[in-house]
């Protein structure tokens, strides 16, 4: 591995960590979960109990849920 490749791997790692920490990957995880839960349904992808939310809908739903279920921060 060259130095440059090492730097790129490192930077990608930092970006991955930061995204995870701030919760930016929430939509990806939701989509993956949705796809996985549909997989068991042999007839087609859109038969899941809830239709897949678009990215915009998902984030709105996300903060609306936080409104209804607030989490404390520590001192």
């Amino acid at each position: 591995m060259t130095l440059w490749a090492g730097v790129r791997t490192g930077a990608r790692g930092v970006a991955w960590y930061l995204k995870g920490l701030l919760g930016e990957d929430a939509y990806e995880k939701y989509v993956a979960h949705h796809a996985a839960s549909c997989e068991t349904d042999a007839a087609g992808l859109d038969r899941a109990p809830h239709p897949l939310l678009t990215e915009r809908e998902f984030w709105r739903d996300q903060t609306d849920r936080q409104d209804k279920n607030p989490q404390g921060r520590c001192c």
Partner: protein
Amino acid sequence: MGVTSSTTKEPTALKRIPHDLAVALDPEELDAHDRQWTPLKILIWSVISLLGGLSWVMLAVVRGETVNAIWFVFAAICTYLIGYRFYSKFIEKHIVRPDDRRATPAEYKADGKDFASTDRRVLFGHHFAAIAGAGPLVGPVLAAQLGYLPGTIWIIVGVVLAGAVQDYLILHFSMRRGGRSLGQMARDELGVIGGTAALIATLVIMVIIVAILALVVTNALAESPWGVFSVGMTIPIALFMGCYLRFFRPGKITEISIIGFVLLIAAIVGGGMVNGTEWGQTYLLLDKVTIAWGIIIYGFIAAILPVWLLLAPRDYLSTFMKIGTIGMLAVAIVIIRPEINVPAVSGFATSGTGPVVAGTLFPFLFVTIACGALSGFHALIASGTTPKLIQKERQTRFIGYGGMLMESLVAIMALVAALSIDRGIYFAMNASPALTGGTVQGAVAFVNGLGLTGVNLTPNMLTDMATNVGEESIVSRTGGAPTLAVGLSHIMQQLVGGTSMMSFWYHFAIMFEALFILTAVDAGTRVARFMLQDSLGNFFPKFKNTSWRPGAWAATAIMVAAWGAVLLMGVTDPLGGINTLFPLFGIANQLLAAIALAVCMAIVAKRGLFKYLWVVALPLGFASVVTISASFLKIFSTTPGIGYFAQNRAFANALAAGETSFGTAPNVLAMEAVVRNTMVQGVLSIIFVVLSIIVIVTAIQATVRAYRQRSNATSEDDAVQSQTYAPAGFIMTPPEKVLQAEWDARPAEKKIKVKGH
């Protein structure tokens, strides 16, 4: 799939290999690996032990002129590593007994939203950011008046034996119960009386904690146009970020956080310019009462605004700043290695007459430093979001125990930062205005009059420092935050920028603390509002509906009024505020810890693990003794500086005798304020101690009952077979690497093996 009723207690037959791949390592193989002491392992642990031992000797035994800060860091890290490797492993093996064959709530309740498997390293950062706030930064600063050693020992030993144990156990127990909250677990384990007492205690404690955090910010921003401007600017910055995420680019959190961070730095620099202008001095030089009212009004509005607009974006900023600044401080301390010129144990430890916080070392050290050693508030976090995100059971040790060790390290660094500044300046900043008169001359006379060896404060030292950090004055800037900011700027300027950058670093530190205190105030008000609505709903069913606007607003107003009243009381207190109120904060936090540990003890007893009950009983006993004796001193002590009611009587008697000034109160109005404040503080102490005694007694009853019945019961959710695998710690062990490689080598179409709803 999912949770079945918990009436059947037949253990499900769990498989280690449910399909073609193992979801857990063989416990015997794990154990064998732990017990296999290769020469390299022996060498590493010998070095860690020797370095740790040497550091403790340097701190506790060797008495030179000064002691280098690096020994604090080494003593802490080596002790943490030993505690993590040996003590938490012991707890894991005998009490927690994780089973990776069992699915975690994130797996069996997976909804892709609230319950979602999260990488252990990411979740570690997430959990750390949620537990570490202003507490570990403020407490150690105030406790520095006792000398460097008592605080250091309590932070390091306390976390290993108490704080991290509590966090770990609560996290694991909550995870085994589908992510149940502390309040629910208290009701399940302690019955209605214990559960209700725990609930009320949590609510009251929440109010106190929010009030005192707000007091810390108020003290940091009063008489500081620079601070008011830069912290004030965080509001429009957060609003902008919120709108950006809502309307322009939803989900681009890292991107907007970086933009927000740049704007924050601009706000700090801008504050420096505003500080020099006339309008800045006219409109932003605010006194404490004005700032307190500002925070109260802000707190109400922030708590009724939707989360996306203010709370969520500021939370991103706060996380960003928190990780960055703590990392920066750690690097700076290691590179600069400041010399610390403070006695190991000061005379205030035994005399109890310290000007920063009144009282002797026992019990007041242990309530002054709560966060960083043992913090009950963490039990609310460890039974909140985190247990719903864990991938595998064995990860709770890394996240729960390890996360708390990290917070403890932050507390050690805050202590080092506070100790690294001149001791005379430290006391001038932290003695209340009632003692210094708020003037440079008064502060110099007061501090030099304390008779501390090696302390010789001159007026120039105070005015120079004030000029360097860009403040009007640094006299009586109580609350811990300004002292920490001076300490941080003192260390950082040696690394970057020199004296001319000190004012930037000072306000950077103030901003960093204000950010997460304001987030904690906002979030705390929201949580308290929901708890209140839930309780009110038992009498007025309409309140149960949390989207009913008038109800939500009324409940928010009640909670804001409650903490606002305590805040105003602290701000206007003729006795100084922080030094009378901070013990309440510490006591409240430790009592919550006693409640959490009491719940843990009841759970451990119910499972029949009496042989290892001491692991919980030890910190519970200590927390109970400390907080109950501190509360009793606050209630019954006849020394006016310590006992709230003694103070109350002294002032009431003076008023009755027709005196027009008494002690530090210059007039009748101030004397009446003292009478009022001490009564409120005294009553709060009584409420805390009574509620906690109820909880502890019910926990002991539950434990005895379990012992008599030879109990082997559990209130856990039923076990569900896990289908996934992930390693347990930060670094994979060799057996984990082998299994992980097998999972990585699976064909892509087989990778997702999650069942539907």
